[in-house]
């Protein structure tokens, strides 16, 4: 008998809905129906969490046979879009704001404000940029992350604040690519 994991992977690969559908709800419903038809729930009785990676799609199974499809392909594509937009705005901000000596003028640039407006989802991207850029991305972080959580609170110099944020980022996001 095939081990449970291999069996599931094989089943998932054969499932046509994973590859075709971009609609998470639809894919989830179709996948559930398909699994009920093709897999005996008793096969999944052990407390078990399998993350099956098939064409960027992760499927989580647990012992009570609750099945959840998280469309990582959709998430991944959303993140790629976000990263692309972030990089375009960040590059433009770094270039255009450089004409100013006034820090306030740098920070009211439309792209910088739009980046802040995207909230916590852009924090890993800002931290990644902070590793190589000498521009002041700290103001954006200070305005996205709550004051209580600000790891650079009270640090009055750029280098020290950058180190504190990167350390905080490594803990919070495990690693910053």
């Amino acid at each position, binding site marked *: 008998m095939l081990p449970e994991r291999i069996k599931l992977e094989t089943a998932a690969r054969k499932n046509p809905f994973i590859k075709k559908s971009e609609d998470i709800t639809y894919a989830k419903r179709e996948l559930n129906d398909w699994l009920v038809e093709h897999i005996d729930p008793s096969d999944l009785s052990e407390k078990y969490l399998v993350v099956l990676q098939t064409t960027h799609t992760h499927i989580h199974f647990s012992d009570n046979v609750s099945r959840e499809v998280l469309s990582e392909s959709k998430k991944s594509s959303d993140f790629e879009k976000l990263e692309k937009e972030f990089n375009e705005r960040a590059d433009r901000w770094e270039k255009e704001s450089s004409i100013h000596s006034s820090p*306030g003028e740098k920070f009211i640039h439309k792209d910088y404000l739009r980046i802040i407006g995207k909230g916590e989802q852009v924090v890993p991207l800002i931290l990644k940029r902070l590793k190589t850029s000498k521009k002041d991305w700290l103001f954006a972080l200070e305005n996205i992350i709550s004051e209580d959580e600000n790891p650079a609170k009270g640090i*009055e110099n750029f280098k020290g604040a950058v180190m504190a944020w990167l350390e905080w980022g490594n803990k919070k996001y495990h690693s910053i690519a």
Partner: protein
Amino acid sequence: MRCLEIEDYLENLGSHDYDQDDTSPQTEDYNCIAYAIVGITNKPWWPSDRRKDDYEWPSHLPREEYLKETLENFIQAFGTKGYRVCGNGKLKKGIEKVAIYTISGVPKHAARQLETGVWTSKCGDYEDIKHYTLPPTEGKNYGKVTVFLHRRRDGKPFLKDKILLIVKKLLGR
């Protein structure tokens, strides 16, 4: 040599003569105010009330909120290096002049006059440029020149300041 990048942001610069030769490289290490007050240095000058260690500012002068900086504060800061308000930017032998640019009264930029009469500006994080007159650097980003300051190039105080100093000593202040 021209710098098209700077011309993109100083909309009146392109149609005038200016020079980017023999200048400092792009750097965030100092800004136009530092460059006007003390020349090339390793710290920007700004009355920033945030990350105070990164911005030089005379300790007895107030730190101010972004975009609410006051011209008076800048005049006082230049004053610590011997600058006093004067009426114009005309070249005068032995005198160094500075022009402060503002938008709605808020300082945005400063340029310093060289002995030749040419002005020199550090354009934010970009390189410094030499411009023959002030209007080419005025515009949407730096606003207009609203005040001129001057000091003696030999570092000595003006006669008026000498007299004030003597009076203060006599009064025991």
